[in-house]
């Protein structure tokens, strides 16, 4: 039995390493490609070891961009992505936590109706209503703006539900103690409920930041100006040059740069990430 245990463990280690290899290989290839010479890659002669063009490729990617297709520095695209991701994450948390607060801690006419109006938005992702949404954003003159990028993606119920669920677990006596201690609704929210929600907010922030950073279809529709495009859109445009040679090292460097922030968030804040993921899917 003990010997068999040892053997089984050995197998488990091997399977896990194979899994890691499968998961990591495409990214490794991208990184390697981003350090090599374009001509070599275009000939199908790419080496599986890193080349010597790391600094020059990344410098050009971040500060200059491709010479053929987009000509937009990827640093700028990353900035746009960052603004959009932060706006979505912070905006969603902010509007959700206050509406959840109202729904849980007050009784008012149409309370349940409002809850259901918000709740139903859970069901439909932005993809199924893209054109009408596009039209509204256009009518509001928000094309090519950060507001246009972020606002329609803030309209969702997940965060509201999460906060509602959390608030329900906060003991009633805390509110009563606060009332006796002379705190009104806003004070209770700010002094007690908000600090208690910190972990939930952080977990949610991690998830929403990743989802925001990775948005694709919506920015694709509403950004027309090159200086407003996000990094995900930038990659796609770099690949559009079918006649001219695609500048593969720059495309791959952009891919690596596009992965870096969200992957960093997942690895560095793994606990919060896992918690956020499990909570938002409940």
């Amino acid at each position, binding site marked *: 039995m003990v010997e068999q245990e040892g053997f089984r463990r050995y197998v488990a280690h091997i399977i896990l390493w194979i899994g890691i290899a499968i998961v990591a290989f495409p990214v490794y290839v*991208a990184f390697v490609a981003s350090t090599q010479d374009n001509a070599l890659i275009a000939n199908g002669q790419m080496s599986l070891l890193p080349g010597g063009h790391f600094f020059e490729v990344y410098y050009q990617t971040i500060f200059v961009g491709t010479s053929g297709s987009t000509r937009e520095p990827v640093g700028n695209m990353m900035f746009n992505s960052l603004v959009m991701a932060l706006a979505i994450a912070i905006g969603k948390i902010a509007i959700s936590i206050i509406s959840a607060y109202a729904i849980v801690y007050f009784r008012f006419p149409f309370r349940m109706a409002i809850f259901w109006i918000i709740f139903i938005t859970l069901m439909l992702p932005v993809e199924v209503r*893209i*054109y009408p949404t596009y039209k509204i954003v256009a009518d509001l003159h928000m094309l090519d703006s950060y507001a246009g990028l972020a606002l329609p993606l803030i309209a969702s119920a997940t965060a509201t539900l999460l906060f509602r669920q959390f608030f329900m677990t906060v003991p009633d006596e805390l509110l009563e103690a606060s009332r006796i201690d002379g705190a009104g609704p806003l004070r209770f929210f700010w002094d007690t409920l908000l600090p208690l929600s910190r972990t939930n907010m952080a977990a949610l922030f991690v998830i929403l930041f990743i989802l925001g950073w990775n948005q694709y279809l919506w920015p694709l529709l509403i950004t027309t100006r090159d200086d407003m495009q996000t990094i995900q859109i930038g990659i796609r445009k770099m690949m559009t040059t079918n006649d001219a040679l695609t500048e593969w090292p720059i495309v791959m460097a952009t891919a690596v740069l596009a992965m870096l922030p969200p992957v960093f968030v997942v690895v560095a804040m793994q606990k919060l990430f896992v918690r956020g993921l499990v909570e938002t899917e409940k």
Partner: protein
Amino acid sequence: MQKQAIFQSKLLPYALVAPQLAIVLIFFYWPALQAVIQSFLLQDAFGLSTSFVWFENYLELFSEPAYFETVVRTFFFSFAIATSSLSVALLLAVMADKPLRGGAVYRTLLIWPYAVAPPVVGVLWVFMLHPSLGVLSRYLRAAGIEWNPLLDGNQAATLVILAAAWKQISYNFLFFLAGLAAIPKSVLEAAAIDGARPMRRFWTVTFPLLSPTIFFLLVVNIVYAFFDTFGIIDTMTRGGPGTSTVTLVYKVYNDGLIGGNLGSSAAQSVILMIMVIVLTGIQFRFVERKVTY
């Protein structure tokens, strides 16, 4: 379930829900309503006049063989992506659930692809398996396979499925790990004492106890395959070659933006909405049984 301890205020709660309500109404309900209305309208070729045509857009859609092909293709993609990704993730999770040295490291190394954006996934895979310059294509050719996803529809579909399944492994892995951790060790120990060998223990105890997780993930994976694959497909194949990798969402996008057929695109959106509502409904019924709010 309701709170007993609450605040009294007439206006404050409305002020607190107002921002979310405004955003939801403007960017969610209004467009959704527009989509439904639009799906009953027909625009002439120049976009000059619009007429109300009842269900004509829908009828036309249903009489179109291409639409049915797309429906079937989308479901096939979903099924293929879900099963392949789920089985790999389950295998890895079962291995990582063992008390191994370095277990936390394995977990970290397996979950990060969750953070990779769909279009990036598309770029990575298309580069790796590019017919002329992909590093893996060399080996496929050496093995005697005529590999060219730019021309061969089946190969393009395979590529999309592989890439989409790859991205979803980490997500499924995480939820399987959580599901496995929730199985009481004593049950497995009892099974061991009852003489069940590890493999048998897995199929007769672990797997049935994991079935709620599996069902939940199945629904999530199908929704993922419906919507999140858009970015993968758009950077990888643009739906091609021909229409061999066009899914329902991609068709909405194509017919609406590229083809300019807003009525048909809206009708497709409405059908998609109904599909998602049904899927989410199934999921909620299931979730409600397991978790009580």
